[in-house]
């Protein structure tokens, strides 16, 4: 499923990386510990977190993630937006909780069938 379809399905707000949405998303990863994401997230997955520090962009690039969904209506820091812009990384916002977003993405991707 493409990132574009997921954005539509989950009603996400696109902050940055708007011209990089044709990526194929294979999986999701939900965590707020960046050390854990660095150790365990797989490439091309969409990362769900409430962290907004600029380091999230570097971790996403390092792990070749498809993008980041920031949950709970949190707003990314200014440096985070700038860095994501520079890296053309899709930074997406949701007003829902990590549990809700994860559950819906899990369904959208047809997991657990």
């Amino acid at each position: 499923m493409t990132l574009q379809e997921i954005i539509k399905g989950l009603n996400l707000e696109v902050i940055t990386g708007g011209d990089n949405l044709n990526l194929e998303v294979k999986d999701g990863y939900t965590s707020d510990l960046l050390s854990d994401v660095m150790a365990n997230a797989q490439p091309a997955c969409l990362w769900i977190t409430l962290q907004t520090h600029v380091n999230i962009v570097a971790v996403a690039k390092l792990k070749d993630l498809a993008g980041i969904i920031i949950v709970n209506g949190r707003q990314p820091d200014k440096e985070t937006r700038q860095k994501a812009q520079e890296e053309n990384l899709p930074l997406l916002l949701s007003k829902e909780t990590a549990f809700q977003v994860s559950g819906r993405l899990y369904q959208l991707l047809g997991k657990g069938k």
Partner: protein
Amino acid sequence: MKVLRTFKADLHIHTCLSPCGELSMSPRNIILRAVEEKIDILGICDHNSAENVPALLAIAKTYPVTIFPGMEITSQEEIHILGLFDNLEAVLQLQEEVYHHLPGENDEEAFGLQVVVNEQGEVLRFNPRLLIGACNLSLNQIVDLIHSFKGLAIASHIDRESFSLISQLGFIPSDIILDALEISPSISYYQALNRFAPHLPLVSFSDAHRPEEIGQSFTRFLIQEASLTEIRLALRNQQGRRIIH
């Protein structure tokens, strides 16, 4: 002119005010243990509060120990950051800012008692705030606040798997203006150098929550006197002041 000499510092000590600190962490017990361990400087850093600092300052007057008033603040990223000062007013100003941004009430059953005491160890009150919680200030905002009150900002126990700069943010942000990084007693200076290749000075303190943990880990500074200014010079390796590893 005073000569440089070695000062032994353990700048990360909790008291009975921290919900996770033992009740035996009374001001007198802390000072007595520090004297026993030949510690010259103690940093008093309870979680998100400095209400036991006055008692420590009062009792330390009659002992050969210098107290640095401080706090261990939890950022919104859930990173622990030490703020250390050379006077009570500064830490109380910081405490006011932190309280303003710290939501929630303590549940004593779940987290423990938060005891404010006087220098005799008598209970003055119980702090009702959720001191174990995170305040809604970012890491950078907290570091800026500490510096605005002329304090030192040190990231706590960066080698730990929870509440540390590295566990929460994956790596040390290159633009961060911390004065030092603290490692816990469970890792040596050389192990930490290898693991983190830090661009900031490394210090080691005990993070004591029980009297017997005080001095379990410490840092030696070559400085003129037990002041924050001298420690700052040592962290920057200036004017002959330095950390002795």
